[in-house]
């Protein structure tokens, strides 16, 4: 895998985006960035910095107050924090629902859903309901459902935040594998610095109230594969994040 130099049109363009709720504080301000096709970007910030709001705007669940965004015409796939599987459907049923709403004909859905579940190593668990699955299995099902939307852009809102450390490590490997296999553009929101360095090619640090991009780092493969370099970068980012938080003291 090579570092993307974005020769073609970027997947996402954000221009001077701001978001404020009527009568409330400004949540996001002056956000400008572009995300290349196939890039894996992590958005990092303390709680309440508007990370999720930014994703909701990109997913067109909420309109921006000012500024402009450009996302792929077909919109974005979205993976939620937790508990977003519909409890009355089986794991396969949840994936099939995404296919159905995308307009895949009924005959092809079952086959396609089974393939997607195999991709996240859940081939055997398709007939189980969400409450019978462990937290990790649920989030892998949610990942399969997001992939079933077949959008080039995948937005992920702290998808592994509620998982135990062992499962989370494993899902990092899993997500990296799926990303390389499918070539999606991924915007991944997290408050975990180590997770951001582990997954992202680029890490954007958002300040809090209002949320602005204060700094960004490239995480090259050589840094990621060198434990000492990765640890050093993690420390740098953590220091910068803490500095940002202590501003609010």
């Amino acid at each position: 895998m090579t570092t993307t130099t974005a020769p073609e049109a970027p997947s996402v363009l954000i221009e001077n985006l701001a978001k404020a709720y009527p009568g409330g504080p400004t949540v996001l301000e002056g956000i400008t960035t572009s995300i290349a096709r196939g890039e894996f970007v992590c958005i990092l910030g303390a709680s309440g910095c508007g990370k999720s709001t930014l994703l909701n705007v990109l997913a067109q669940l909420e309109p921006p107050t000012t500024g402009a965004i450009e996302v792929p015409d077909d919109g974005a796939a979205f993976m939620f924090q937790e508990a977003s599987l519909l409890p009355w459907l089986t794991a396969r049923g949840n994936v099939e629902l995404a296919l159905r709403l995308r307009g895949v004909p009924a005959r092809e859905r079952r086959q396609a859903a089974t393939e997607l579940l195999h991709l996240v190593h859940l081939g055997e668990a398709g007939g189980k309901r969400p409450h019978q699955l462990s937290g990790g299995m649920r989030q892998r099902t949610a990942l399969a459902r997001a992939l079933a939307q077949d959008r080039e852009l995948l937005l992920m809102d702290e998808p592994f935040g509620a998982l135990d450390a062992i499962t989370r490590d494993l899902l990092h490997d899993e997500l990296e594998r799926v990303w390389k296999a499918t070539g999606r553009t991924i915007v991944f929101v997290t408050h975990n610095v180590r997770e951001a360095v582990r997954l992202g090619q680029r890490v954007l640090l958002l300040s809090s109230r209002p949320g602005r991009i204060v700094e960004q780092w490239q995480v090259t493969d050589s840094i990621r594969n060198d434990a000492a370099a990765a640890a050093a970068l993690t420390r740098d980012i953590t220091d910068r994040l803490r500095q940002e938080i202590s501003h609010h003291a």
Partner: protein
Amino acid sequence: MPSNPTLLDDQPATGAPPSSPSATTIGDLEAGLDRLQSQGPPARRDLVRSLLPVAAVVALLCVWQILSWAGLKRSDLLPGPLTVAASLADAFADGTLQRAVATSLLRGVSGFAIAILIATPLALLLAQVRTLRAALGPLVSGLQVLPSVAWVPAAIIWFGLTDATVYFVVLMGATPSIVNGLLSGIDQIPPQYRSVGTVLGATRLQHTLLITLPAALPAYLGGLKQGWAFSWRSLMAAEIIAVGGSIGFGLGSMLQQGRDLSSMPLVMAAILAILVVGIVIELLVFSPLERRLLRRRGLLTQGAS
């Protein structure tokens, strides 16, 4: 990754961890973790537990029989279970019992079905249109509290002694409960389910059919259950008050007949028959439906089975 000896052969000691474990390794790891973290099969139902209600009924019958033997009241005022059973057997032998149960059940079920057909779209409409909900919500809740017997005189004046009277009263009894059940079910849908529907690109109709209705189903079923109870009660009230004309002979009519004849055994036999029909419907229809629905969603606690 020294904790994984199988990888060490392929990775000479470079000091750096392997860039990514092979796909089969992730698959195996996940399969192991999935096995460790998943629950076992659900516990089976306890036979003794399901026999407890039967024991309670038998005990009640014994107390009743003993009381009637003790002769505290005249036997025509407090007949024992055996006398009532004989009266039920008589009614069964000449066919009035079967006819009354069939007539009442048919009316109850069809009236209830009509109520479902009216209440469901009405509730969906109220849930969608905020203004309408604000205007009609209190009225619907009020109607739920109003005893449906109150409609009987009005219905007799409008429709006379016909089946329409009975159906009207049943309808007024059941509809508000079903509407309120579905409405509260829709109110309780976790907001992330709506977001899921929006993100997956559901149209308004798909939203209603594939997300809202199934998500609200448990509360809807609760409303249906209560709606059936109101239907059955309203039906009996209507049958007791409105006798004659073209109205057929139902369980309520049988109860009223017992009163006219001053036959306490017949009155108690009719009460028992009304009670038994109610219990049978609950045990055969609502209880299994509810249990299945909740179990599939993992909402059934073991003690409540």
